[in-house]
Protein backbone atom coordinates (compact mmCIF):
# COMPACT_ATOMS: atom_id res chain seq x y z
CA UNK A 1 0.00 0.00 0.00
CA UNK A 2 2.84 2.40 0.79
CA UNK A 3 4.10 2.12 -2.73
CA UNK A 4 0.67 2.85 -4.23
CA UNK A 5 0.26 5.91 -2.01
CA UNK A 6 3.75 7.20 -2.76
CA UNK A 7 2.98 6.79 -6.46
CA UNK A 8 -0.22 8.81 -6.02
CA UNK A 9 1.65 11.64 -4.31
CA UNK A 10 4.34 11.66 -7.01
CA UNK A 11 1.85 11.48 -9.90
CA UNK A 12 -0.11 14.34 -8.38
CA UNK A 13 2.95 16.60 -8.16
CA UNK A 14 4.21 15.60 -11.59
CA UNK A 15 0.82 16.32 -13.15
CA UNK A 16 0.68 19.84 -11.72
CA UNK A 17 4.31 20.59 -12.50
CA UNK A 18 3.88 19.47 -16.10
CA UNK A 19 0.86 21.75 -16.50
CA UNK A 20 -1.55 18.90 -17.24
CA UNK A 21 -4.13 20.38 -14.87
CA UNK A 22 -7.14 18.79 -16.52
CA UNK A 23 -5.97 15.56 -14.84
CA UNK A 24 -5.82 17.19 -11.41
CA UNK A 25 -9.45 16.60 -10.28
CA UNK A 26 -9.10 12.90 -11.15
CA UNK A 27 -6.78 12.41 -8.19
CA UNK A 28 -9.76 12.98 -5.89
CA UNK A 29 -12.91 11.02 -5.16
CA UNK A 30 -16.08 12.50 -6.65
CA UNK A 31 -16.92 14.29 -3.36
CA UNK A 32 -13.25 14.87 -2.55
CA UNK A 33 -12.18 18.03 -0.74
CA UNK A 34 -9.17 20.18 -1.45
CA UNK A 35 -8.07 23.16 0.58
CA UNK A 36 -5.09 25.46 0.79
CA UNK A 37 -4.91 27.12 4.19
CA UNK A 38 -2.31 28.95 6.26
CA UNK A 39 -0.79 27.20 9.22
CA UNK A 40 -2.03 30.03 11.42
CA UNK A 41 -5.66 29.46 10.42
CA UNK A 42 -5.31 25.67 10.45
CA UNK A 43 -3.87 25.67 13.96
CA UNK A 44 -6.63 28.02 15.14
CA UNK A 45 -9.24 25.66 13.70
CA UNK A 46 -10.64 28.34 11.37
CA UNK A 47 -12.64 27.14 8.38
CA UNK A 48 -11.53 29.56 5.66
CA UNK A 49 -8.16 29.33 3.97
CA UNK A 50 -6.98 30.60 0.61
CA UNK A 51 -8.73 28.18 -1.74
CA UNK A 52 -11.43 25.58 -1.18
CA UNK A 53 -12.96 22.92 -3.42
CA UNK A 54 -15.70 20.76 -1.95
CA UNK A 55 -16.06 18.43 -4.92
CA UNK A 56 -14.38 17.34 -8.14
CA UNK A 57 -16.79 19.70 -9.94
CA UNK A 58 -15.37 22.69 -8.09
CA UNK A 59 -11.88 21.59 -9.07
CA UNK A 60 -12.96 21.34 -12.71
CA UNK A 61 -14.36 24.88 -12.44
CA UNK A 62 -11.03 26.07 -11.05
CA UNK A 63 -9.14 24.55 -13.96
CA UNK A 64 -11.65 25.91 -16.46
CA UNK A 65 -11.37 29.35 -14.85
CA UNK A 66 -7.59 29.46 -14.93
CA UNK A 67 -7.59 28.32 -18.54
CA UNK A 68 -10.27 30.67 -19.85
CA UNK A 69 -11.10 33.45 -17.40
CA UNK A 70 -8.27 34.29 -15.03
CA UNK A 71 -5.45 36.56 -16.11
CA UNK A 72 -1.91 36.19 -14.80
CA UNK A 73 1.64 35.91 -16.07
CA UNK A 74 2.54 32.41 -17.22
CA UNK A 75 4.43 30.38 -14.66
CA UNK A 76 5.03 26.79 -13.58
CA UNK A 77 5.69 24.96 -10.33
CA UNK A 78 8.24 22.40 -9.28
CA UNK A 79 7.20 20.32 -6.26
CA UNK A 80 9.81 18.72 -4.02
CA UNK A 81 8.15 16.15 -1.77
CA UNK A 82 9.20 14.64 1.52
CA UNK A 83 8.73 11.03 2.53
CA UNK A 84 5.12 10.49 3.64
CA UNK A 85 4.01 9.14 7.00
CA UNK A 86 1.11 6.73 6.77
CA UNK A 87 -1.45 5.79 9.36
CA UNK A 88 -4.26 3.38 8.64
CA UNK A 89 -7.62 4.58 10.01
CA UNK A 90 -10.34 2.08 9.13
CA UNK A 91 -10.75 2.05 5.38
CA UNK A 92 -8.68 5.16 4.79
CA UNK A 93 -5.10 6.22 5.25
CA UNK A 94 -4.15 9.43 6.99
CA UNK A 95 -1.00 10.60 5.23
CA UNK A 96 1.26 13.50 6.12
CA UNK A 97 4.10 14.78 3.98
CA UNK A 98 6.18 17.90 3.56
CA UNK A 99 6.38 19.89 0.36
CA UNK A 100 8.36 22.72 -1.12
CA UNK A 101 7.08 24.39 -4.26
CA UNK A 102 9.24 26.60 -6.46
CA UNK A 103 7.59 28.98 -8.89
CA UNK A 104 9.31 29.49 -12.23
CA UNK A 105 8.24 32.65 -14.07
CA UNK A 106 8.43 33.06 -17.84
CA UNK A 107 11.55 35.22 -17.51
CA UNK A 108 13.25 32.42 -15.58
CA UNK A 109 12.89 34.00 -12.16
CA UNK A 110 12.66 31.09 -9.72
CA UNK A 111 11.45 31.61 -6.16
CA UNK A 112 10.40 29.48 -3.23
CA UNK A 113 6.66 29.95 -3.57
CA UNK A 114 5.33 27.74 -0.80
CA UNK A 115 6.48 25.34 1.87
CA UNK A 116 4.26 23.31 4.14
CA UNK A 117 2.56 20.00 4.80
CA UNK A 118 0.00 17.96 2.98
CA UNK A 119 -2.56 16.41 5.31
CA UNK A 120 -4.29 13.74 3.25
CA UNK A 121 -7.03 11.19 3.66
CA UNK A 122 -6.60 8.56 0.99
CA UNK A 123 -9.05 5.77 0.11
CA UNK A 124 -9.24 2.96 -2.38
CA UNK A 125 -11.72 4.19 -4.95
CA UNK A 126 -12.53 1.39 -7.40
CA UNK A 127 -9.08 -0.15 -6.95
CA UNK A 128 -7.28 3.17 -7.35
CA UNK A 129 -5.99 5.22 -4.42
CA UNK A 130 -7.55 8.69 -4.42
CA UNK A 131 -7.71 11.67 -2.10
CA UNK A 132 -10.89 11.90 -0.08
CA UNK A 133 -9.37 15.08 1.22
CA UNK A 134 -6.12 16.91 0.69
CA UNK A 135 -5.22 19.93 2.75
CA UNK A 136 -2.10 21.93 1.91
CA UNK A 137 -1.12 23.75 5.09
CA UNK A 138 1.18 26.65 4.23
CA UNK A 139 3.92 27.58 6.67
CA UNK A 140 3.62 31.25 5.72
CA UNK A 141 0.51 33.40 5.80
CA UNK A 142 1.80 35.34 2.78
CA UNK A 143 1.26 34.48 -0.84
CA UNK A 144 3.59 36.15 -3.31
CA UNK A 145 1.56 37.96 -6.01
CA UNK A 146 -1.29 35.47 -6.45
CA UNK A 147 -2.19 31.81 -6.33
CA UNK A 148 -3.88 30.31 -9.36
CA UNK A 149 -2.36 26.87 -9.96
CA UNK A 150 -3.20 24.27 -7.33
CA UNK A 151 -0.42 23.19 -4.99
Amino acid at each position, binding site marked *: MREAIEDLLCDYAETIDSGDLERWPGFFTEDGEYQIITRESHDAGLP*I*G*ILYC*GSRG*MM*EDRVQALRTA*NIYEPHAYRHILGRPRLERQGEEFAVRSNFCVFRIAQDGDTVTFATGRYLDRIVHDGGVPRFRSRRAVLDSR*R*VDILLVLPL
Partner: protein
Amino acid sequence: MDVPITHDLAADLAWPQEGVTRVPFRVFSDPGIYAEEQKRLFRGPIWNFLCLEVEILRPGDWRLATVGETPVVVTRDEHGAIHAMVNRCAHKGALVCLQERGNAKALTCVYHSWSYDLAGRLQSVAFRHGVRGKGGMPEDFDTARHRLEQLRVEVFCGLVFGTFSDATVPVETYLGDTMARMIRRNLGRPHRILGMHSQIIHNNWKLYAENVRDSYHATLLHTFYTTFKVNRLDMDGGMLLSEDGRHSISYAKRDTLQQSDEYRKVHSAQYGSALAAPEMLDTFTEFDDGVTHCIQTVFPTLVVQLTLNSLAVRFFTPRGVDKTELFWIYLGYRDDSEQQTRQRLMQSNLTGAAGLVSLEDGCINEFVQRGTRGSEDRNAFLEMGGRDVASSDGSRATETGIRGFWQGYRKLMGF
Protein backbone atom coordinates in the same frame (compact mmCIF):
# COMPACT_ATOMS: atom_id res chain seq x y z
CA MET B 1 18.86 54.12 -3.33
CA ASP B 2 19.61 57.36 -1.55
CA VAL B 3 17.36 60.11 -2.81
CA PRO B 4 17.25 63.40 -0.92
CA ILE B 5 13.79 64.54 0.10
CA THR B 6 12.79 67.56 -1.89
CA HIS B 7 11.93 70.48 0.37
CA ASP B 8 9.07 71.66 -1.73
CA LEU B 9 7.76 68.49 -3.30
CA ALA B 10 4.56 70.24 -4.32
CA ALA B 11 6.31 72.76 -6.51
CA ASP B 12 8.68 70.12 -7.78
CA LEU B 13 5.94 67.65 -8.68
CA ALA B 14 3.71 70.17 -10.49
CA TRP B 15 0.47 68.19 -10.58
CA PRO B 16 -1.09 68.56 -14.04
CA GLN B 17 -3.57 71.41 -14.39
CA GLU B 18 -6.32 68.93 -15.35
CA GLY B 19 -6.45 68.07 -11.65
CA VAL B 20 -7.76 64.70 -10.45
CA THR B 21 -8.28 63.38 -13.97
CA ARG B 22 -4.50 63.08 -14.26
CA VAL B 23 -2.05 61.31 -11.98
CA PRO B 24 1.70 61.72 -12.44
CA PHE B 25 3.19 58.22 -12.64
CA ARG B 26 6.03 59.51 -10.49
CA VAL B 27 3.87 59.31 -7.34
CA PHE B 28 4.05 55.52 -7.58
CA SER B 29 7.82 55.20 -7.65
CA ASP B 30 9.45 58.29 -6.11
CA PRO B 31 11.13 57.40 -2.78
CA GLY B 32 10.99 61.06 -1.73
CA ILE B 33 7.21 61.17 -2.13
CA TYR B 34 6.92 57.84 -0.34
CA ALA B 35 8.89 59.23 2.61
CA GLU B 36 6.70 62.34 2.73
CA GLU B 37 3.55 60.19 2.78
CA GLN B 38 4.77 58.55 5.97
CA LYS B 39 4.71 61.96 7.65
CA ARG B 40 2.02 64.02 5.97
CA LEU B 41 -0.49 61.29 5.23
CA PHE B 42 -0.14 58.36 7.63
CA ARG B 43 0.68 60.64 10.57
CA GLY B 44 -1.75 63.27 9.32
CA PRO B 45 -5.40 63.93 10.26
CA ILE B 46 -6.72 60.55 9.10
CA TRP B 47 -7.92 57.35 10.77
CA ASN B 48 -5.73 54.32 10.10
CA PHE B 49 -7.30 50.88 10.46
CA LEU B 50 -5.32 48.99 13.11
CA CYS B 51 -7.11 45.71 13.77
CA LEU B 52 -10.46 44.19 14.61
CA GLU B 53 -11.78 44.45 18.13
CA VAL B 54 -12.41 40.68 18.18
CA GLU B 55 -8.66 40.16 17.89
CA ILE B 56 -8.10 41.73 21.32
CA LEU B 57 -11.09 40.63 23.38
CA ARG B 58 -9.51 39.74 26.72
CA PRO B 59 -7.72 42.11 29.08
CA GLY B 60 -4.00 41.95 28.32
CA ASP B 61 -4.48 40.94 24.68
CA TRP B 62 -2.26 42.74 22.24
CA ARG B 63 -1.82 42.72 18.51
CA LEU B 64 0.74 44.27 16.21
CA ALA B 65 -0.26 46.64 13.41
CA THR B 66 1.38 49.22 11.21
CA VAL B 67 0.54 52.80 10.31
CA GLY B 68 2.33 53.39 7.08
CA GLU B 69 5.62 51.74 7.93
CA THR B 70 5.47 52.69 11.61
CA PRO B 71 5.14 49.62 13.85
CA VAL B 72 2.23 49.88 16.27
CA VAL B 73 0.94 47.69 19.10
CA VAL B 74 -2.74 47.68 20.02
CA THR B 75 -3.66 46.53 23.52
CA ARG B 76 -6.67 46.00 25.76
CA ASP B 77 -5.95 46.97 29.34
CA GLU B 78 -7.23 45.43 32.57
CA HIS B 79 -10.20 47.80 32.55
CA GLY B 80 -11.19 46.88 29.00
CA ALA B 81 -9.96 50.08 27.35
CA ILE B 82 -8.14 49.82 24.02
CA HIS B 83 -4.82 51.58 23.49
CA ALA B 84 -2.46 51.95 20.56
CA MET B 85 1.19 52.88 20.84
CA VAL B 86 4.20 52.96 18.57
CA ASN B 87 5.96 49.64 19.16
CA ARG B 88 9.23 51.39 19.90
CA CYS B 89 10.90 51.45 23.26
CA ALA B 90 11.30 54.96 24.73
CA HIS B 91 14.87 54.02 25.63
CA LYS B 92 16.79 52.87 22.55
CA GLY B 93 14.02 52.48 20.04
CA ALA B 94 13.90 48.68 19.88
CA LEU B 95 10.66 46.85 19.13
CA VAL B 96 8.92 46.11 22.42
CA CYS B 97 6.41 43.45 21.35
CA LEU B 98 7.86 40.80 19.07
CA GLN B 99 5.05 38.32 18.54
CA GLU B 100 2.20 39.26 16.24
CA ARG B 101 -0.32 38.74 19.01
CA GLY B 102 -0.18 37.82 22.65
CA ASN B 103 -1.46 38.38 26.14
CA ALA B 104 0.50 39.99 28.94
CA LYS B 105 0.15 42.07 32.09
CA ALA B 106 2.89 44.41 30.99
CA LEU B 107 4.93 45.13 27.87
CA THR B 108 8.64 44.70 28.47
CA CYS B 109 11.43 45.52 26.07
CA VAL B 110 13.85 42.61 25.86
CA TYR B 111 16.86 44.85 25.30
CA HIS B 112 17.16 46.53 28.74
CA SER B 113 13.93 45.44 30.45
CA TRP B 114 12.14 48.75 30.31
CA SER B 115 8.62 47.78 31.25
CA TYR B 116 5.36 49.51 30.31
CA ASP B 117 1.77 49.04 31.41
CA LEU B 118 -0.90 48.19 28.83
CA ALA B 119 -1.53 51.89 28.23
CA GLY B 120 2.14 52.37 27.34
CA ARG B 121 3.20 54.18 30.54
CA LEU B 122 6.71 53.35 31.71
CA GLN B 123 6.55 51.41 34.98
CA SER B 124 10.12 50.44 35.67
CA VAL B 125 13.58 50.20 34.19
CA ALA B 126 16.21 47.59 35.03
CA PHE B 127 19.07 48.66 37.31
CA ARG B 128 17.46 52.03 37.90
CA HIS B 129 19.38 52.36 41.14
CA GLY B 130 22.43 50.61 39.80
CA VAL B 131 23.97 47.37 40.98
CA ARG B 132 25.43 47.21 44.50
CA GLY B 133 25.05 50.94 44.79
CA LYS B 134 26.99 51.73 41.64
CA GLY B 135 25.72 52.93 38.30
CA GLY B 136 22.02 53.51 37.73
CA MET B 137 19.98 56.36 36.36
CA PRO B 138 20.57 59.95 37.51
CA GLU B 139 18.68 61.02 40.64
CA ASP B 140 16.19 63.06 38.66
CA PHE B 141 15.16 60.17 36.37
CA ASP B 142 11.36 60.07 36.36
CA THR B 143 9.46 57.14 34.83
CA ALA B 144 6.42 59.39 34.38
CA ARG B 145 8.32 61.36 31.77
CA HIS B 146 8.80 58.38 29.48
CA ARG B 147 6.21 56.31 27.68
CA LEU B 148 5.49 54.55 24.39
CA GLU B 149 4.34 57.14 21.85
CA GLN B 150 0.58 57.11 21.91
CA LEU B 151 -2.00 57.16 19.14
CA ARG B 152 -5.58 58.23 19.67
CA VAL B 153 -7.94 55.29 19.28
CA GLU B 154 -11.58 54.94 18.28
CA VAL B 155 -13.61 51.80 17.72
CA PHE B 156 -16.45 51.77 15.21
CA CYS B 157 -18.47 48.59 14.58
CA GLY B 158 -15.59 46.43 15.78
CA LEU B 159 -13.00 48.22 13.63
CA VAL B 160 -10.17 49.70 15.68
CA PHE B 161 -8.79 52.92 14.22
CA GLY B 162 -5.80 54.97 15.31
CA THR B 163 -4.51 58.43 14.52
CA PHE B 164 -1.36 60.39 15.32
CA SER B 165 -3.01 63.75 14.78
CA ASP B 166 -4.96 65.81 17.29
CA ALA B 167 -6.80 67.39 14.38
CA THR B 168 -8.52 64.18 13.23
CA VAL B 169 -12.31 64.47 13.52
CA PRO B 170 -14.28 61.63 15.19
CA VAL B 171 -14.49 58.43 13.10
CA GLU B 172 -18.19 58.82 12.28
CA THR B 173 -17.62 62.37 11.08
CA TYR B 174 -14.57 61.21 9.15
CA LEU B 175 -16.68 58.57 7.41
CA GLY B 176 -19.80 60.65 6.83
CA ASP B 177 -23.39 59.36 6.98
CA THR B 178 -23.46 57.17 3.88
CA MET B 179 -20.23 55.39 4.69
CA ALA B 180 -21.01 54.95 8.37
CA ARG B 181 -24.43 53.50 7.53
CA MET B 182 -22.98 50.84 5.23
CA ILE B 183 -20.33 49.80 7.75
CA ARG B 184 -23.04 49.57 10.40
CA ARG B 185 -25.09 47.42 8.02
CA ASN B 186 -22.24 44.98 7.39
CA LEU B 187 -20.31 44.97 10.66
CA GLY B 188 -22.81 46.30 13.19
CA ARG B 189 -23.59 42.81 14.47
CA PRO B 190 -21.28 40.61 16.54
CA HIS B 191 -18.90 38.91 14.14
CA ARG B 192 -16.03 36.48 14.32
CA ILE B 193 -12.97 35.70 12.24
CA LEU B 194 -13.26 32.70 9.90
CA GLY B 195 -9.77 32.87 8.41
CA MET B 196 -7.01 35.16 7.28
CA HIS B 197 -4.07 35.38 4.92
CA SER B 198 -2.10 38.02 3.10
CA GLN B 199 -0.45 38.53 -0.23
CA ILE B 200 2.56 40.54 -1.28
CA ILE B 201 1.85 42.67 -4.30
CA HIS B 202 4.79 44.30 -6.03
CA ASN B 203 3.43 47.77 -6.47
CA ASN B 204 3.05 51.08 -4.69
CA TRP B 205 0.24 51.05 -2.10
CA LYS B 206 -1.72 53.75 -3.96
CA LEU B 207 -2.14 51.54 -7.00
CA TYR B 208 -4.17 49.16 -4.86
CA ALA B 209 -6.06 52.10 -3.31
CA GLU B 210 -7.03 53.07 -6.88
CA ASN B 211 -7.77 49.48 -7.86
CA VAL B 212 -10.40 48.92 -5.13
CA ARG B 213 -12.12 52.19 -6.11
CA ASP B 214 -12.10 51.25 -9.78
CA SER B 215 -15.56 49.94 -10.62
CA TYR B 216 -14.72 50.34 -14.33
CA HIS B 217 -12.29 47.40 -14.46
CA ALA B 218 -14.34 44.85 -12.54
CA THR B 219 -16.06 42.98 -15.36
CA LEU B 220 -13.28 43.71 -17.86
CA LEU B 221 -10.28 42.32 -16.01
CA HIS B 222 -12.11 39.86 -13.78
CA THR B 223 -13.85 37.81 -16.43
CA PHE B 224 -14.87 34.89 -14.25
CA TYR B 225 -18.48 36.05 -13.93
CA THR B 226 -18.91 36.75 -17.62
CA THR B 227 -17.03 33.66 -18.82
CA PHE B 228 -19.26 31.42 -16.74
CA LYS B 229 -22.35 33.32 -17.79
CA VAL B 230 -23.13 34.25 -14.25
CA ASN B 231 -25.95 36.77 -14.40
CA ARG B 232 -24.21 39.94 -13.47
CA LEU B 233 -23.98 42.49 -16.21
CA ASP B 234 -27.63 43.44 -15.96
CA MET B 235 -27.44 44.13 -12.29
CA ASP B 236 -28.33 47.56 -11.02
CA GLY B 237 -25.47 49.19 -9.23
CA GLY B 238 -23.50 52.31 -8.66
CA MET B 239 -20.66 54.07 -6.98
CA LEU B 240 -21.35 56.13 -3.87
CA LEU B 241 -18.78 58.55 -2.55
CA SER B 242 -18.44 60.26 0.80
CA GLU B 243 -18.87 64.01 0.75
CA ASP B 244 -15.11 64.52 0.61
CA GLY B 245 -14.83 61.87 -2.13
CA ARG B 246 -12.08 59.81 -0.56
CA HIS B 247 -14.22 56.92 0.72
CA SER B 248 -16.42 54.93 -1.62
CA ILE B 249 -18.97 52.17 -1.97
CA SER B 250 -19.25 50.17 -5.16
CA TYR B 251 -22.51 48.23 -4.98
CA ALA B 252 -24.68 45.98 -7.10
CA LYS B 253 -28.11 44.46 -6.78
CA ARG B 254 -28.27 41.00 -8.24
CA ASP B 255 -31.85 41.29 -9.36
CA THR B 256 -35.13 42.76 -8.31
CA LEU B 257 -36.71 39.39 -7.60
CA GLN B 258 -34.20 39.10 -4.84
CA GLN B 259 -35.97 41.74 -2.79
CA SER B 260 -39.14 39.75 -2.46
CA ASP B 261 -37.27 36.73 -1.17
CA GLU B 262 -37.77 35.74 2.36
CA TYR B 263 -35.09 37.01 4.67
CA ARG B 264 -32.21 34.58 4.76
CA LYS B 265 -33.96 32.06 2.60
CA VAL B 266 -31.48 29.85 0.84
CA HIS B 267 -32.13 29.74 -2.84
CA SER B 268 -30.20 27.50 -5.10
CA ALA B 269 -28.19 28.47 -8.13
CA GLN B 270 -30.18 31.27 -9.62
CA TYR B 271 -27.16 31.68 -11.77
CA GLY B 272 -27.89 29.94 -15.04
CA SER B 273 -24.20 29.39 -15.30
CA ALA B 274 -21.82 27.06 -17.06
CA LEU B 275 -20.22 26.03 -13.79
CA ALA B 276 -19.79 22.32 -13.09
CA ALA B 277 -20.43 23.08 -9.41
CA PRO B 278 -22.79 26.08 -9.30
CA GLU B 279 -23.39 25.43 -5.59
CA MET B 280 -20.39 27.65 -4.97
CA LEU B 281 -22.65 30.59 -5.71
CA ASP B 282 -25.68 29.44 -3.70
CA THR B 283 -26.56 32.32 -1.46
CA PHE B 284 -28.83 33.27 1.37
CA THR B 285 -30.33 36.73 1.65
CA GLU B 286 -28.81 38.74 4.49
CA PHE B 287 -30.34 42.17 4.01
CA ASP B 288 -33.60 43.39 2.55
CA ASP B 289 -32.11 46.35 0.66
CA GLY B 290 -31.36 44.22 -2.39
CA VAL B 291 -27.64 45.00 -2.35
CA THR B 292 -25.77 41.74 -2.99
CA HIS B 293 -22.28 43.02 -3.81
CA CYS B 294 -20.65 45.79 -1.88
CA ILE B 295 -17.02 46.87 -1.82
CA GLN B 296 -16.48 49.77 0.50
CA THR B 297 -13.25 51.70 0.87
CA VAL B 298 -12.21 53.83 3.81
CA PHE B 299 -9.34 56.21 3.13
CA PRO B 300 -6.55 55.40 3.02
CA THR B 301 -6.08 51.63 3.30
CA LEU B 302 -9.22 49.82 4.50
CA VAL B 303 -11.80 47.85 2.52
CA VAL B 304 -14.98 46.18 3.79
CA GLN B 305 -16.57 43.71 1.42
CA LEU B 306 -19.78 41.75 1.34
CA THR B 307 -19.73 39.92 -1.98
CA LEU B 308 -22.75 37.61 -2.02
CA ASN B 309 -22.24 36.05 1.41
CA SER B 310 -18.50 36.58 1.62
CA LEU B 311 -17.96 39.09 4.40
CA ALA B 312 -14.39 40.30 4.74
CA VAL B 313 -12.16 43.13 5.80
CA ARG B 314 -9.15 43.83 3.64
CA PHE B 315 -6.40 46.27 4.43
CA PHE B 316 -3.10 47.01 2.83
CA THR B 317 0.08 48.33 4.23
CA PRO B 318 3.12 49.75 2.43
CA ARG B 319 6.29 47.67 2.67
CA GLY B 320 8.43 49.97 0.56
CA VAL B 321 7.79 52.28 -2.38
CA ASP B 322 7.01 49.37 -4.73
CA LYS B 323 5.85 46.66 -2.32
CA THR B 324 2.57 46.31 -0.46
CA GLU B 325 1.10 43.65 1.82
CA LEU B 326 -2.60 43.05 1.31
CA PHE B 327 -4.42 41.35 4.19
CA TRP B 328 -7.69 39.43 3.94
CA ILE B 329 -9.70 38.75 7.08
CA TYR B 330 -12.78 36.63 6.42
CA LEU B 331 -15.66 37.11 8.82
CA GLY B 332 -18.97 35.58 9.74
CA TYR B 333 -21.64 36.71 12.17
CA ARG B 334 -21.53 35.11 15.56
CA ASP B 335 -25.04 33.71 15.16
CA ASP B 336 -24.41 32.15 11.72
CA SER B 337 -25.67 28.61 11.28
CA GLU B 338 -23.30 25.87 10.16
CA GLN B 339 -24.83 26.06 6.70
CA GLN B 340 -24.26 29.81 6.50
CA THR B 341 -20.62 29.39 7.54
CA ARG B 342 -20.31 26.75 4.83
CA GLN B 343 -21.60 29.19 2.22
CA ARG B 344 -19.19 31.86 3.38
CA LEU B 345 -16.44 29.26 2.96
CA MET B 346 -17.64 28.40 -0.55
CA GLN B 347 -17.76 32.06 -1.58
CA SER B 348 -14.40 32.87 -0.04
CA ASN B 349 -13.21 31.37 -3.34
CA LEU B 350 -14.27 34.56 -5.07
CA THR B 351 -11.77 36.84 -3.33
CA GLY B 352 -8.36 36.68 -1.72
CA ALA B 353 -4.95 35.76 -3.15
CA ALA B 354 -6.59 32.90 -5.10
CA GLY B 355 -9.93 34.63 -5.63
CA LEU B 356 -11.72 33.78 -8.85
CA VAL B 357 -12.71 37.44 -9.27
CA SER B 358 -9.77 39.04 -7.48
CA LEU B 359 -6.55 37.15 -8.17
CA GLU B 360 -5.82 39.37 -11.17
CA ASP B 361 -5.46 42.32 -8.81
CA GLY B 362 -2.37 40.59 -7.43
CA CYS B 363 -0.57 41.24 -10.71
CA ILE B 364 -2.42 44.06 -12.49
CA ASN B 365 -1.05 46.78 -10.22
CA GLU B 366 2.43 45.38 -10.69
CA PHE B 367 1.87 45.66 -14.44
CA VAL B 368 1.27 49.40 -13.92
CA GLN B 369 4.32 49.64 -11.68
CA ARG B 370 6.45 47.99 -14.36
CA GLY B 371 4.72 49.67 -17.28
CA THR B 372 5.39 53.16 -15.98
CA ARG B 373 9.13 52.66 -15.42
CA GLY B 374 11.00 55.31 -17.31
CA SER B 375 7.79 57.33 -17.75
CA GLU B 376 7.78 59.14 -14.42
CA ASP B 377 7.07 62.42 -16.20
CA ARG B 378 3.90 61.06 -17.84
CA ASN B 379 0.39 60.91 -16.41
CA ALA B 380 -2.48 58.46 -16.04
CA PHE B 381 -5.76 59.54 -17.71
CA LEU B 382 -8.91 59.22 -15.59
CA GLU B 383 -11.99 60.59 -17.35
CA MET B 384 -14.30 57.58 -17.42
CA GLY B 385 -17.67 58.71 -16.09
CA GLY B 386 -16.75 62.39 -16.34
CA ARG B 387 -14.19 64.66 -14.75
CA ASP B 388 -15.79 65.30 -11.42
CA VAL B 389 -15.77 63.70 -8.00
CA ALA B 390 -19.37 62.74 -7.28
CA SER B 391 -21.48 59.66 -6.62
CA SER B 392 -22.50 57.77 -9.72
CA ASP B 393 -25.83 56.20 -8.87
CA GLY B 394 -26.82 53.81 -11.59
CA SER B 395 -23.48 53.25 -13.31
CA ARG B 396 -20.23 51.67 -12.35
CA ALA B 397 -18.57 52.53 -15.66
CA THR B 398 -16.81 55.36 -13.90
CA GLU B 399 -13.51 56.34 -12.33
CA THR B 400 -15.11 58.78 -9.93
CA GLY B 401 -13.95 56.76 -6.90
CA ILE B 402 -10.34 56.97 -8.04
CA ARG B 403 -10.63 60.70 -8.64
CA GLY B 404 -12.06 60.97 -5.13
CA PHE B 405 -9.02 59.18 -3.71
CA TRP B 406 -6.66 61.60 -5.43
CA GLN B 407 -8.68 64.57 -4.24
CA GLY B 408 -8.17 63.41 -0.65
CA TYR B 409 -4.54 62.49 -1.25
CA ARG B 410 -3.59 65.81 -2.82
CA LYS B 411 -5.14 67.79 0.00
CA LEU B 412 -3.12 65.93 2.62
CA MET B 413 0.10 65.96 0.65
CA GLY B 414 -0.13 69.59 -0.46
CA PHE B 415 0.13 68.59 -4.13
